[in-house]
């Protein structure tokens, strides 16, 4: 993985000391709250409902075991012994003291981590496919370009005060696991007719109160133009994006208001001014960064692994876990393992310090010291030999990290919601917990099949409810929690925004509503048809009829 050079390390170290000074000045009364607030936010420090929350960037979801152990140590020493992995592949600590924050940032800097640009109207942590570099269907590792974008966007002087926050996601595979179509900019790597690899550039996707699927403004961008083209897009947005209305400030609103064609034309005109200049990416620089993401020293393994195949036959519980939580690897004899952070009745995305330490040990023992964070709030061991899977599974079971529910109804995304978030209208986590408990029978889960339930505690949609097969949005009605349900959303290469089924449900009714939806699906589905396929075939009507039959 990428290692800091002297520039990176100096920049991060200096930032820590700058913030230490700012905290001291705040405590000493030299800075008012109004003056200090933007400074702490630009260092990832929010004031939430119960305490300060520190959001730490996990660039494109890749962590070394050294970094994961550091996060465990911070959780133990400065928080309440856990951290929360988010839908943007970041990690949040919920119980941080202001006065500890400079020390925490200094600790993070020792393992090449920081909280820079995890808040504020700037280019945020660039996200990627969590199976980057190991997926069987991958064209090229997207993290090379994520890292290049990270370097370009970090402290970019022109883009530190954009109209609003800005999120970029990159996928190197045809199957989109990075939700690129609901990002401000989505980059999808593919080959053109000449066989060259480049990017499809999508702009103006997003969730929040105005969910939009991104539009393609350039079908193929050669790699060397990546930064100049991004710069052109950001310049147009910076110039024309609205600053008078918080709710209309994202690039999706600009693209919609001027039209995708006009927006494309503006970007292309700007790009003609700056292309082939200092932002050109030389092949040698791409290769230099690629070197950091070189494949680890894989062994040459047989296609047949008798001990693994034997365990699959002998142990049905193991076989069931393999079916849901293990994904084919591009290298023969290896597998990608997803650790479920969604135990039955658990809090999606939470990991204790002990779990983080144990995962780091397992990643060292059964991998090459690397762990991934998925935007679906799970962790991934990317390089496990098939021969080690049985032993690994047994250890994950004892750590409560082997719930066989990846991609199923129990694998729920949920934002922190009103339990933690100052913006939320309703709680998300308890709804996720209730649904998870209700659908804990593994046989039933497998029968239901692929089902993505996503829950947000407010319209900002951190829980991605718009793109859930079943989306649940918490709303406040006269001080009480209600939940609006949407159906048919999807965040993959066939992305769609869910349709609202009808009036919202009270907190006590929402699990029953989800059950009614699932029962309806089971009743009307055709053979082998997934929930989303069924929904796309039959539409809202049968679900609506069942849900509101009694009303």
């Amino acid at each position, binding site marked *: 993985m990428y290692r800091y050079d002297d520039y990176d390390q100096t920049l991060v170290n200096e930032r820590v000391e700058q913030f230490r000074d700012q905290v001291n000045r*705040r405590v000493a009364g030299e800075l008012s709250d109004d003056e200090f607030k933007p400074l702490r936010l630009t260092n990832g420090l929010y*004031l939430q409902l*119960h305490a300060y929350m520190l959001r730490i960037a996990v660039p494109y979801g890749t962590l070394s075991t050294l970094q994961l152990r550091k996060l465990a140590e911070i959780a133990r020493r400065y928080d309440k012994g856990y951290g929360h992995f988010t839908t943007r592949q970041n990690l949040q600590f919920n119980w941080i003291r202001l006065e500890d924050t400079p020390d925490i940032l200094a600790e993070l800097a020792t393992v090449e981590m920081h909280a820079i640009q995890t808040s504020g109207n700037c280019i945020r942590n660039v996200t990627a496919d969590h199976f980057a570099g190991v997926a069987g269907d991958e064209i090229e590792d997207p993290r090379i370009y994520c890292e290049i974008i990270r370097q370009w966007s970090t402290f970019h002087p022109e883009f530190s005060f954009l109209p609003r926050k800005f999120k970029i996601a990159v996928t190197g595979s045809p199957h989109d696991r990075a939700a690129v179509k609901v990002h401000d900019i989505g980059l999808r790597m593919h080959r053109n007719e000449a066989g060259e690899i480049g990017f499809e550039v999508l702009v103006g996707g997003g969730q929040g109160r105005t969910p939009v699927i991104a539009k393609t403004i350039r079908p193929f961008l050669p790699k060397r133009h990546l930064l100049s083209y991004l710069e052109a897009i950001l310049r147009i947005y910076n110039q024309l994006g609205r600053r008078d209305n918080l709710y209309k400030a994202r690039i999706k609103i600009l693209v919609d208001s001027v039209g995708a064609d006009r927006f494309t034309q503006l970007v292309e005109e700007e790009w003609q001014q700056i292309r082939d200049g200092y932002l050109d990416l030389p092949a040698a620089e791409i290769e230099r960064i690629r070197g950091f993401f070189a494949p680890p020293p894989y062994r040459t393994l047989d296609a047949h692994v008798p001990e693994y195949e034997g365990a699959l036959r002998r142990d049905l519980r193991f076989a069931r876990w393999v079916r849901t939580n293990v994904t084919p690897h591009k290298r023969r004899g290896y597998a990608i393992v997803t650790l479920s952070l969604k135990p039955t009745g658990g809090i999606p995305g939470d990991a204790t310090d002990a779990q983080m330490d144990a995962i780091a040990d397992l990643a060292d023992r059964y991998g090459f010291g690397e762990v991934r964070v998925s935007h679906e709030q799970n962790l991934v061991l990317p390089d496990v030999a098939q021969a080690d899977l049985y032993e690994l599974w047994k250890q994950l079971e004892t750590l409560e990290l082997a719930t066989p529910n990846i991609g199923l109804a129990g694998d729920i995304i949920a934002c922190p919601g009103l339990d933690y978030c100052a913006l939320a209208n309703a709680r998300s986590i308890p709804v996720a917990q209730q649904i998870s408990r209700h659908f804990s029978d593994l046989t039933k889960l497998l029968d239901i099949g692929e089902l993505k339930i996503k829950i947000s505690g407010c319209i900002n949609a951190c829980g991605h409810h718009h793109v859930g097969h079943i989306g649940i949005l918490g709303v406040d009605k006269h001080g009480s929690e209600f939940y609006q349900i949407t159906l048919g959303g999807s965040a993959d290469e066939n992305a769609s925004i869910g349709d609202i089924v009808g009036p919202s449900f009270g907190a006590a009714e929402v699990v029953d509503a989800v059950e009614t939806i699932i029962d309806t699906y089971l009743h009307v589905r055709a053979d082998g048809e997934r929930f989303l396929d069924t929904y796309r075939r039959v539409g809202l009507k049968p679900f609506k009829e069942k849900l509101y039959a009694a009303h």
Partner: protein
Amino acid sequence: MALQVVTANRLGDGRVVFLADGYRWVEEIGLARVGETEEAATALLAIAEKAAADRIIVAPYLIGVSTDGDRITPTRYREVLRARGPSSHPEFGRPPSATAAAHR
């Protein structure tokens, strides 16, 4: 007349606090000083603004409450959660009445 108390977050650790008698800031809502009229509530908020200027707390505001004997309960659910702690991690919450009793 709606009853109100002042809440804020402590500057140093961000914890939820309530304005009590004697200009004290306490974590237990049961100890909060209740403004029974709009004038009383406004006076409490003025005390809080001074505490914010003195860097004890940040972002103070008034919340509506109801009382039942020694018990003070916020009107809005958001404030109930702030007073008790996250429902999803009850082990980090504050017991609603035990600490109040202990302070008396």
